[in-house]
């Protein structure tokens, strides 16, 4: 992982003065999740006029948080939750929006704003949909306005969804906590009451068995570590050539190493056989393995194009078919269903020069995820994708210095994310509490300025 010396400097007393005087970006040290830490360190204010705000306030009280409906002047708050569930036309936005606005200067570093609203797509009435879309717009813009590592995200509820659904609690907790440190300007949707709340929020994956592909290094190794920390038993997979680092990952997370080329026809079956032999169950599959073979399309050769498509999307499609054909990848009714989480990329959303093949594969992942949710729903499972933006890895450390420096600052948090930021989001989507969220692609990009 490359050192971000600028961020280190900007967080020294001199660096703070200088960057402020010169109007330079001021990347903050982000609050990240530590087991045992409170969801947020200080008061949480819940604003809004509908019933959802009351339900959320009661929920937060069960987590022993300092919950307020109002805030004293100059008091620091850790989070503001703005509930827009009662709006029916854009004119209704103002009360809650402006109420939220008055508190923003009191939001602490690495604070959180979460807007909560009903799904715009569910509204056929033009005024209603306009109002709901309006919340999206204000949330995205507010995310750009947040300072000192604070973020703004939306929690989008299906039309008639009970605000007491497990994934409302799970999603809210994820967005408030340090797990979502590098997620900003994004929308987490909750479609159903599926999902199970964990007995211990620090060990939500206790007893579960997870497979992570491409786990020898980088983001994949970090995913394995975070899933392990959250209680999962790990099967880590990578190509035989990466076996030495894969073994090191397996030994760090007390898991088992499976050397396997995921483009093999029987890769899914071999993963299932390994899980059956060593654990007798399989709950979570994280399709992280991916490659880049960048070239302008005009200069693209078949080897580059085909290998990227084969590894990044065709292999996932084939493995999913095998997984969904096998009863091992299923759980008894009443428990949390199986989870698939795939790695997409902001390149697949916004496009990237030189990455037609990569973007095709990653946009493909998003399509696959959206189209597969019905199949997973049949076994009370979910499938989602996570699209990382600029993440500090061995791979991005090889980007020339100036390009890397620019890429790092091109987001609302003015810094690159860490592999564990991606891993935290994956761990949430893989958790029992996230059972109501499926078919979604969630970006972990610090609200990258490039792309949607």
């Amino acid at each position, binding site marked *: 992982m490359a050192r971000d010396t600028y961020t280190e400097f900007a967080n020294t007393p001199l660096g703070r003065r200088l960057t402020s005087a010169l109007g330079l970006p001021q990347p903050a040290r982000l609050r990240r999740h530590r087991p045992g830490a409170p969801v947020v360190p200080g008061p949480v204010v819940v604003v809004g006029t509908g019933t959802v705000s009351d339900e959320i306030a009661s929920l937060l009280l069960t987590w022993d948080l300092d919950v307020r409906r109002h805030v004293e002047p100059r008091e620091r708050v850790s989070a503001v939750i703005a509930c827009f569930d009662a709006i029916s036309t854009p004119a209704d936005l103002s009360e809650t929006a402006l109420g939220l606005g008055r508190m923003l200067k009191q939001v602490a570093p690495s604070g959180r704003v979460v807007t909560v609203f009903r799904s715009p797509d569910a509204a056929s009435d033009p005024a209603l949909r306009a109002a709901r879309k309006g919340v999206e717009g204000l949330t995205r813009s507010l995310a750009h306005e947040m300072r000192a590592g604070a973020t703004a995200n939306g929690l989008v509820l299906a039309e008639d969804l009970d605000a007491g659904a497990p994934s409302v609690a799970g999603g809210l907790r994820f967005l408030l906590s340090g797990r979502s440190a590098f997620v900003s300007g994004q929308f987490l949707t909750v479609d159903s009451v599926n999902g199970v709340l964990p007995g211990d929020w620090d060990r939500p994956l206790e007893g579960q068995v997870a497979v992570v592909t491409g786990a020898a290094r980088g983001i994949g190794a970090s995913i394995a570590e975070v899933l392990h920390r959250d209680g999962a038993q790990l099967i880590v997979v990578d190509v*035989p050539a990466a076996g030495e680092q*894969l073994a090191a990952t397996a030994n760090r997370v007390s898991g088992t190493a499976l050397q396997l080329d995921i483009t093999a026809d029987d890769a899914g079956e071999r993963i299932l056989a390994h899980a059956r032999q060593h654990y007798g169950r399989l709950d979570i599959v994280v399709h992280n393995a991916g490659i880049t073979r960048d070239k302008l399309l005009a200069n693209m050769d078949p080897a580059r194009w085909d290998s990227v498509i084969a590894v990044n999307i065709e292999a996932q499609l084939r493995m999913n078919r095998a997984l969904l054909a096998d009863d091992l990848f299923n759980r008894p009714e009443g428990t949390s269903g199986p989870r698939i989480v795939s790695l997409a990329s902001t390149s697949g959303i916004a496009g990237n020069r030189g990455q037609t093949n990569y973007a095709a594969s990653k946009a493909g992942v998003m399509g696959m995820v959206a189209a597969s949710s019905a199949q997973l729903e049949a076994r009370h499972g979910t499938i989602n994708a996570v699209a990382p933006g600029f993440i500090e890895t061995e791979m991005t450390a090889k980007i020339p210095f100036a390009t890397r420096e620019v890429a790092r600052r091109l987001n609302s948090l003015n810094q690159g994310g860490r592999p564990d930021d991606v891993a935290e989001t994956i761990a949430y989507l893989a958790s029992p509490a996230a059972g109501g969220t499926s078919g979604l692609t969630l970006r972990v990009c610090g609200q990258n300025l490039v792309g949607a």
Partner: protein
Amino acid sequence: MTTIDRTSAQTRTVQTRDVVVIGGNRIPFARAHGAYATASNQDMLTSGLNGLVARFGLQGQRIGSVAGGAVMKHSKNFNLVRESVLGTPLDPATPATDVQMACATGMEAIGSLADKIRLGRIESGIGAGVDSISDAPIVVTDALRRILMEANRAKTPGQRLKALAKIRPGHLAPQAPGVNEPRTGMSMGEHMAVTAHAWGIGRQEQDELALASHQNLAAAYDDGFFDDLVTPFKGVQRDTNLRADSTLEKLGKLAPAFGRDLGEEATMTAANSTALTDGASAVLLGSADYAEAHDLPQLATFVDYEQAAVDFVDGAEGLLMAPAYAAARMLERNGLTFEDFEYFEIHEAFASTVLAQIAAWEDEEFCRGKLGLDAPLGRIDRSRLNIHGSSLAAGHPFAATGGRIVATLAKMLHGKPGKLGFISVCAAGGQGITAILEGR
């Protein structure tokens, strides 16, 4: 006959049970002074064990015993295996034993662990081996050593000076560790050349065996056979000695390397003899109960093994022919013949070693006269011999070869319950080990 009645084959007074081979791991073997030139025995063995721990999720587990060793070993590595274990995530309460039996070190480590498991003394064991030619200890001459020891014993500076004054320039030449037989002064290759000549082993058949070894090993790698047997080390992914593109023509052009005094009749070249190699291997064994309790695979049963030694010093028998004798005793004890075996893994110290052993087992006179049998032990079908390659292609880091063979054969037998596999490994000092695995 494909199954064995082990209760009648072995007379015993204690309850015994099946020992299963759970799996193995090795690092790719590398030609000496190549990719692993800067790696120590301990580095390689630790890496081999780490890969095994990772493959089977053994982190934090106390293994009953880890036995292994190295042939080329410095005295400072008196606890080589224990030190390596301490470098892995295994429970530090895992005991370890250093074993040495020349090229059969790995086999002896595995066989003795199997016996302990069979007797119920331990539930699990790891048999391991490592060797490095690149990191071999350099020793000083005996004369210099005696002077230094005398200086060390000196009580006064004067005595010490007097001792050290005896050092002469000739004492200072370092001595590389010898691989020659101490009692004959002959290299192993020269010994083998005598045996090969006596058995009339031809150049062509040796080259064919070498070529098959390379082709079989390359095919096994290409098929992914080694995906769960080998973990890369220092960026090396396949055995560096492997020459997939070798041909009989190329092999045929090489000049003899051993037995040159035989002139036209010399047959042993650098290609049909194993190269000096660095590498490490490890095999996980356990009782069937242990494997079951830990959700681990059971590839094969470790049925039996047998040591043998021959009197090679005065030329009564070939240096590397001990496995011929071990096989006879082991097969008789188990009521088996070669007809009963599905696969044969005969360590290719030299192509001619394999061919001489096979010739001996087919030879009426040898089997009657030397082995005391009524009839030859039988033919070994070449299509069942070393079918995924052996030491000529993979290389032969002495103590690591046993682990390579046991893990490979166990995987071949997996899913073939009752099918038998035969192992033969020759060793310096006129010794050797044979073993039987049975598929599960």
